[in-house]
């Protein structure tokens, strides 16, 4: 089955210790997104890639970076995690021109100790 895979599902990191979350897709979609969702809040878009074109949201902290080495993979790097970065991180994909229909992975739950 075509899908969006996120690894790991649960990640614990220490305050200030860099962490990388990964996402892969078998849907061959052009667009990939990273969302942050905190408890009882709406998923919040951090950035997205249109093919290799990177689009950063204006209010995404500089602490968050992303890489997309190829169509299938996308990484979220948090350079110096703070306690406030503990959240669910969701990866999603969509076809070009159909950004309203996004396919989500199961998410990675990040805990910062």
């Amino acid at each position, binding site marked *: 089955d075509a899908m969006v895979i996120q690894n790991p599902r649960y990640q614990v990191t220490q305050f200030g210790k860099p962490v990388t979350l990964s996402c892969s897709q078998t849907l061959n979609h052009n667009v990939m997104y990273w969302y942050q969702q905190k408890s*009882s809040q709406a998923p919040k878009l951090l950035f997205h890639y249109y093919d290799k074109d990177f689009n950063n949201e204006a209010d995404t902290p500089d602490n968050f970076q992303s890489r997309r080495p190829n169509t299938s993979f996308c990484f979220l790097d948090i350079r110096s995690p703070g306690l406030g970065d503990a959240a669910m991180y969701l990866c999603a994909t969509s076809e070009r021109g159909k950004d*309203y229909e996004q396919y*989500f992975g199961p*998410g990675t739950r990040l805990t910062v100790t």
Partner: protein
Amino acid sequence: DQQVKQNSPSLSVQEGRISILNCDYTNSMFDYFLWYKKYPAEGPTFLISISSIKDKNEDGRFTVFLNKSAKHLSLHIVPSQPGDSAVYFCAADWGATNKLIFGTGTLLAVQP
């Protein structure tokens, strides 16, 4: 400033009855509205959408209604089934921005 609002954090409905989930928005530039469904430990999955030029879209047991003058949309599920128990997110798309704005979700519990 939340552009998409779901004011009911939870809703409980008896099996077989109608579930009505509500959503309000503030940005008149939105041109597509969507509902996503999320089970625990899974990512949201696309459920149904409606273009801003329509006022109703139906797919099986699911119907979405759009009232542009009130900036309000609703999702009707009839009849409700226990398997419908999930968090439902309302989302809006502004084509010019290529991104979705989500609401905070409503937890629907369908009681057998």
